[in-house]
């Protein structure tokens, strides 16, 4: 079984929100329902400054705190290690939102349930070749694939670029960042 993960190279991210809007379109989201959240970090002082744009989304953690606290089992770790939400079980208590260290879960204002990045390629039936954010990224900052396959693009890139989860070993996150 594959173990899906992603690499995000913040050195290539220009903070253009394209992935966010592409994700909205792919996943039928409300304008307020953002699976991707951007953080902007400024370093240095004028005129020697640096800028880092960091897109955050569900890290599909192996130790997923959201799944641990979900009282109804709506959040679970599904095939391929994808953390998923079964909408039909979600009561919208938002305990998972509190428990998520990355604040990447959102309420669907229309159904009252909680949702988040689905690694859409894994479940897509419309011929989508990779996650819509990966497909849309203008600068190729994102790579998706099987972490268990050492030959996959994502595995090779992680090794080559020494990518690490955003918070180290905190939750065994499966999105790796190049900073």
């Amino acid at each position, binding site marked *: 079984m594959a173990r899906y993960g992603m690499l995000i190279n913040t050195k290539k991210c220009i903070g253009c929100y394209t992935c966010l809007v592409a994700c909205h379109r792919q996943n039928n989201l409300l304008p307020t329902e953002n699976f991707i*959240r*951007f*953080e902007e*970090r400024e370093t240095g002082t004028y005129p020697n400054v640096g800028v880092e744009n*960091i897109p955050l989304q569900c890290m599909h953690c192996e130790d997923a*705190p959201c799944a*641990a*606290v*979900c*009282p*109804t*089992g*709506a959040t679970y770790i599904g095939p391929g290690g994808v953390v998923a939400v079964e*909408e*039909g*079980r*979600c*009561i*919208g*208590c*938002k*305990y998972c*939102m*509190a*428990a*998520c*260290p*990355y*604040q990447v879960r959102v*309420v669907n204002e229309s*159904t*009252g*349930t*909680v949702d988040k990045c689905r690694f859409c390629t894994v479940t897509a039936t419309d011929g989508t070749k990779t996650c819509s954010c990966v497909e849309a990224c203008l600068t190729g900052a994102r790579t998706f694939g099987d972490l268990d396959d050492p030959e996959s693009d994502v595995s090779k890139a992680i090794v080559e670029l020494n990518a690490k989860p*955003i*918070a180290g070993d*905190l939750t065994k996150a499966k999105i790796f960042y190049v900073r």
Partner: protein
Amino acid sequence: MTFVPVWGGIIACYLFLAGLGGGAFITASLVKRMHPEATGVVRVGRVIAPIVVIVGLCLLMVDARGGLYNPLRFVFLLTNPGSVMTWGVVILAVFVLAALIVLLMDLIGKNEAPAWLVWVGNVFGILTAAYTGVLLGVVNTFPLWNNALLPVLFIVSALSTGMAAVMLGGLITCPEQVKGMVDLTKVHLVLPAIEIVLFFFLLFIVAHVSTAGAASVAAMVSGGYALAFWVGIMAVGLVIPLVIEIRALRSGDNRGLAIAGDVGVLIGGYLVRYIIIVAALPVVLL
């Protein structure tokens, strides 16, 4: 993007009422043991306990809109034994059940409720109060929640608000029974004092362990929630009731003041939950 609190006033109210219910039941048991003649006060406590917890549960369901729109989903609530919220549902269910039976037997008046059942109620009352703290305590995103002091603070606050609610009810329905309870007044006096101490330690420690914790504490004591914290919790909820109780011990009862003090404890108790929920800031992981 600025952080928006996950929960708000409704969940604060739920936590508050759950704690209050537990506290009220225990207060009733306490009164029954120490002043068996004060049946009115005992009854007030036993009426309050299940009702407020049920109201709290209803609020929880209102806030959980996914379930509100599809009530059948609440059936799934027991499917994850690892979730504190699942334990909470069990604890609250047992407590409400016990408290309701005790109340019914009390109302029917034929038989006293068996002691074991009252003890089940007492134990689950404490658990209910503790649960509200543990629910937040296990969330390690927020340093303000993620510490062992918070559940203790919530238990003390639950007992304090529960007692205040019972006393308030007593003062309104049967003031003459309340009059003689000097010993309880002493307990009632000690709780806010303990709370102030706990609060001090909680804020001190949280402010020192992480930047997010420090920011949360700053938001409470000097930021956007400072007014609610100092006036609502500290003055109205803790210090003024304390002063009123001390005064009562020294120079005798004053019904009006006692009512004011109890109302203050209740307001403060609610604000404790509310501010701890909304002022908590997450650890920044970038």
